């Protein structure tokens, strides 16, 4: 992939779903979109967040697969499940800390983002990052990101006791070295930060 890497900057996302629409246009995806665009809490905010496969260095989805259906390419891309092997058990769906793999009932198989391997393996950008109009998803060199962005690109995560290193980077404030996700953070929390009525009552 010639030094090209994938970067996510959640703060840039505008929820337009260009990524979702473009994902299914990738030749090998054939009308099935594999990127998730999460609307966080529409009642409170317009915040959205795109989620591609993070392509873990030691992919948990592959570890838990009883059929050995999930393979990683030599260049670090974790592929979608192999059709002849996948038994549709959904272990990977439950195990992935990022919620990426989805089980498709129609084809009895797990499908997930493969970083548009047919494109990226021949030097093209993945569909989602190529079309993303906000730069929330970017496929470029690390050097280019460091030159053009204020945030820091990191790829180390801590989920409770589990340390995970991913191929995909996320842009975070410069003070952050690792993203720690504690169990207590999960669940729904309402916010008034974006409440227009509260802003108007400001004076």
């Amino acid at each position: 992939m010639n030094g090209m890497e994938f970067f996510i900057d959640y703060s840039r996302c505008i929820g337009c779903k260009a990524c979702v629409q473009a994902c299914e246009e990738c030749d090998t995806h054939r009308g099935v979109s594999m990127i998730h665009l999460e609307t966080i809490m529409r009642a409170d905010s317009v915040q959205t967040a795109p989620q591609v496969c993070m392509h873990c260095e030691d992919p948990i989805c592959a570890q838990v697969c009883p059929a050995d259906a999930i393979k990683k390419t030599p260049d670090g891309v974790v592929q979608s499940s192999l059709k002849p092997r996948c038994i549709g058990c959904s272990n990977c769906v439950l195990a992935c800390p990022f919620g990426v793999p989805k089980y498709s009932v129609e084809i009895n198989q797990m499908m997930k983002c493969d970083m548009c391997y047919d494109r990226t393996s021949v030097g093209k950008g993945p569909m989602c990052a190529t079309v993303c109009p906000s730069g929330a998803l970017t496929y470029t060199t690390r050097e280019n990101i460091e030159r053009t962005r204020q945030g820091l690109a990191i790829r180390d995560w801590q989920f409770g006791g589990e340390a995970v290193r991913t191929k995909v980077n996320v842009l975070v404030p410069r003070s952050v070295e690792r993203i720690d996700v504690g169990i207590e953070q999960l669940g729904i929390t309402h916010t008034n930060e974006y409440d227009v009525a509260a802003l108007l009552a400001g004076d």
Partner: protein
Amino acid sequence: MAKLPIDVVTLVNQFGPTLNRVPATGWNSDVEPDRIVKTHCCFCGQQCGIQLKVKDNRVIGFEPWEDFPFNQGRLCPKGVKRYMQDEHPDRLKSALMRKEGTGFVPVSWEEALDKVAGEVRRIQQTYGNDAFAIIGGASLTNEKAYLMGKFARVAVRTANIDYNGRLCMVSAGVASKKVFGLDRSANPWSDIPKAKAILAAGSNVAECSPITTHYFWQARENGAKIIILDPRMTPIARNADLYIPVRSGGDIGVFNGMLHVMIERGWIDREFLAQHATGWEQVEESVSKYTPEYAAKIAGVPASMIVRAAEIWGPADTSFLLHARGIEHHSKGVQNCMAAMNVVLATGRIGREGCGYAMITGQGNGQGGREHGQKCDQLPGGRDIENPEHREYIAGVWGVPEESIPHKGLTFIPIMEAIHAGKIKGMLSICCNPMVSLPDKSWVWEALEKLEFYSTIDFFLSEAGRYADVVLAGSLMEEDEGTTTNVEGRVIHHRKAVDPPADARVDWKIICDLAARLGAGDKFSYNSPAEIFDELRAASKGGPNDYYGITWERIDRELGVFWPCPSLDHPGTPRLYEGGKFAHPDGKAHMQPVEWRPAAEEPDSEYPIILTTGRVVSQYLSGSQTRRIGALVDQYPQPLCEIHPLLAKKFGIAEGDFVKVESRRGSVIVRANVVKTIRPDTVFVPYHWPLERAANNMTVHNIDPMSNIPEYKICAVRVSKVPQPHDEISELEVEAGGVR
């Protein structure tokens, strides 16, 4: 007749909208395209570069075009799915004639064109030349926009030609001409990331011009502070440095209040103003009463926000102000824009790198479509139809006597008024769906029904097309060749990807064939759109909007050329007003003092809530194209009424409830979307849907006295919870006007 030939449900069954979900060759990675055509998206004024994949004269997919400098491959969902309008089951493939009780029947082109030309002449001989009106559109190529203006004046010989750009950004255009002397964004978008302060007013950038988002965020990476004015916290506002939830129509409060503070703090470039502007003294005097507290009352926001905006904007080294429909769609739209321009000029930060001003044009060719004679008061090259020299010059280009060119005609809303008054009896429209796009829909519908004859050129049967006597099957953007002018003033080349299907024809041929039947064939004997462009170049030569030095070859080589470009060796003009030299004869900017005034209809005890309307990212304008693309409809299937929980609670409305939003003119029944991201005195309904889901059922047809833009952005409504409707319109699919 201009009445429905048969009921709506039958027409929907015959002509859609139906949804196209699968590419022409299926989801099949084995199909290799014959050709890849570098062209542009047709859905909005950003005009992103895109490549269309073509096989066997069918568009089968797309590939991003990363080398085109404006968008570098970036696209919004409309651009991604744009190719799904091709090979569409609803596509009109022949001329159609209205048949009472049946609907529409295919007829030969001879019969259809004879009928249209015959009706034009019958109406004109009976009621006078101006009794036949022409309506154009701002999604047409420059070539077609030029042709429509010439067709109206030379072939039909009516004064009454106007276009749907009148519904779009004309307030910005009038204000720009008045203040700067020229109607164009002053800067290329490449100046945005170089600005240290950005102010965007009334612009839902993330949904209406998504590609601009990246420019904003790049500015922020470079240290810019971003200010957003909008009654709704849109996605771009969420991460702005200062979000001002201005009351719809209150923008002058923010602008004048900012100026007031900037004067107090000494953030005015008085040297620039003395050298390069007139009217500053009057502006300074006019804002003296706009203390933050006074301004805050008008804007409907805390005074501290206005002070903070001045503190960001005033001392910045570089800055860029942008605005869009949110401040333009008002009966004081021109005033709103001029107040914004005063904030730019007062700092002298225009006409240099990273310093500028732009209106974010919304329609596909919103810029070029308004330059070459589709407007009722305009001749090609941005010339004035009442200026004797301009008339003489264009008469020479057209080879007609100057006195044969009609004088200024009516704008779009007054044309509808004239239909009501019985003065206009016939109409031909192209690229326009007034049954969705015009305000106060029942008033529009009554007008259409009064017409003796209505014909439309279109590729799908739009909601307005259902009222036509003759429908002429025209061409999609990718079925013809031509140029458009993007939001920056960059003239670009739309290449032809495929031929029109079956018996459909390219639009310019239809117009030329009609002109021939009206006895003007010798003036419309073009063999290609390239010949029309060459005539446009000559017609614009020496005018304010000078395209003379732009050729299709240059556009291809240089990836677009910015007008004015007066000669072949001229590099084009990406940035206007360099060196403080403005486009007025005296070279100065003409600042105008602006006083706030209320909207035509403010909320009252009977209708206590403000309705504001706008777009969603997955739909384009009246939806005639995008409501036929399955993936785009799935993304946001039906209009929702955004309402703040405080207001919703007052009326017992919960998320997902059906609500009736009702004004003095009409209503919609839609589902409620209860969100904290909107002012609690305002509700929002997007306008892309027809019939009982049309936001324009409620809006007013009051217009700005200078620009004649309708006041889409504010009217008074009441909202109530209702049961789910089950009438036959509500039972239609959502893309056709149903509700789920």
